[in-house]
């Protein structure tokens, strides 16, 4: 019975056993008191230090003395991306080299090919946004979203379906009043689903911010300075991860 009472407190009993234990407790007030106290303990122990789950991970914990990769990353300025913009929160950390660099490169190439296109930059225009999103979602096998960048001065030009090394790829294109274009590249990633590594890459003249969310890689490309692109990437990221 002792083990059953603990299993009951920890919610590790079958429905039948639960009914049986509750019947027992109804006629054994001392056991009932204990069960109540232990249940309260669980709640108190979970509350204790629970704020730590929301704290950013101290950078020192990401360092290893043996490998020293963190120092290289710090020297390369990779951490500067997140520290200033508040992205280093809730266990989400900026870790270099997580995503295959080919995601950034492929996105930058796709950007370089289609962004200068005058007559046919997209296959489906932004005026048919709903159709565009539904079509690309179907082809990629996930529910896509075209971020709204109007507050930043960028309108959705439209999008197209591309072929990538991992199958179909969606590309959304945006443009501001001066004709400056941005593309968001979404492609399926190989291997186990994983989350939110955030990286910057400079591919010739194209700046790329890219990350992985579950099974999909996202890359935002534009021919602009990193800080300028970061502002947009911040908004895109937040809209896709509300």
């Amino acid at each position, binding site marked *: 019975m002792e083990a059953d009472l603990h299993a009951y407190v*920890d919610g590790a009993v079958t429905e039948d056993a639960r009914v049986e234990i509750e019947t027992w407790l109804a006629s054994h007030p001392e056991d009932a008191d204990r069960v109540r106290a232990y249940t309260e303990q669980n709640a108190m122990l979970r509350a204790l230090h629970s704020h730590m789950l929301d704290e950013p991970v101290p950078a020192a914990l990401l360092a290893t003395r043996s490998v020293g990769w963190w120092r290289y990353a710090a020297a390369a300025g990779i951490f500067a991306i997140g520290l200033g913009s508040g992205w280093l929160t809730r266990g989400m950390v900026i870790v270099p080299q997580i995503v295959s660099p080919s995601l950034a490169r492929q996105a930058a190439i796709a950007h370089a090919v289609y962004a200068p296109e005058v007559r046919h930059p997209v296959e489906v225009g932004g005026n048919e946004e709903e159709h565009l999103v539904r079509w690309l979602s179907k082809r990629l096998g996930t529910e896509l979203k075209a971020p709204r960048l109007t507050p930043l001065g960028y309108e959705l030009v439209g999008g197209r379906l591309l072929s990538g090394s991992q199958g179909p790829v969606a590309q959304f294109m945006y443009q501001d009043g001066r004709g400056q274009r941005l593309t968001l590249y979404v492609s399926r990633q190989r291997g186990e689903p994983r989350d939110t590594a955030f990286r910057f890459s400079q591919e010739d003249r194209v700046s790329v911010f890219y990350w992985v969310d579950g099974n999909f890689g996202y890359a935002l490309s534009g021919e602009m300075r990193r800080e300028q692109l970061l502002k947009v990437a911040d908004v895109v990221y937040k809209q896709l991860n509300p």
Partner: protein
Amino acid sequence: MRVADRHLITEHIPRLRRYARSLVGDRYVAEDLVQDTLERAWNKFYLWRPGSDLRAWLFTIMHNVFVNEARRRRYEIEQPMEEVPSVPVRGAQSEQLELRDVDRALRSLPVDQREVLLLVAVEQLTYEEVSNALGIPIGTVMSRLSRGRERLRQLLAGRSLMSLKVVK
């Protein structure tokens, strides 16, 4: 190890930090424990079986590091008292239970009971996972859990969660 694997581990760091803090109490000692655990995990990652529960594996490593280092007296572990002490609260008439009282009571549990209690109550590992993580028979898990809970109940007796101010 591949850096992608490193990312798998980093996701668990917030939980490891909380567990270490609850286990050892002191903030800096806890941070050392997490750091040592992570280094060991990164170096021994090839031993982890993909598909098995990475979090449970990390708790196993933390337990081993903790036990080994405790033997070398690097982490100060408060010895359990022979007598069950009453938990001091601010003001003798105060019946209010605060989290630091819980923390203090927890600290006066023997460390082996504290480990089991935290893994079950906070990390919500199954008894079998705790048994595997700590390398002890399931019967020992149950007896430590039972003794730990009962002792904590005595320590906190007379004060109720109803008056607990949970600091969010």
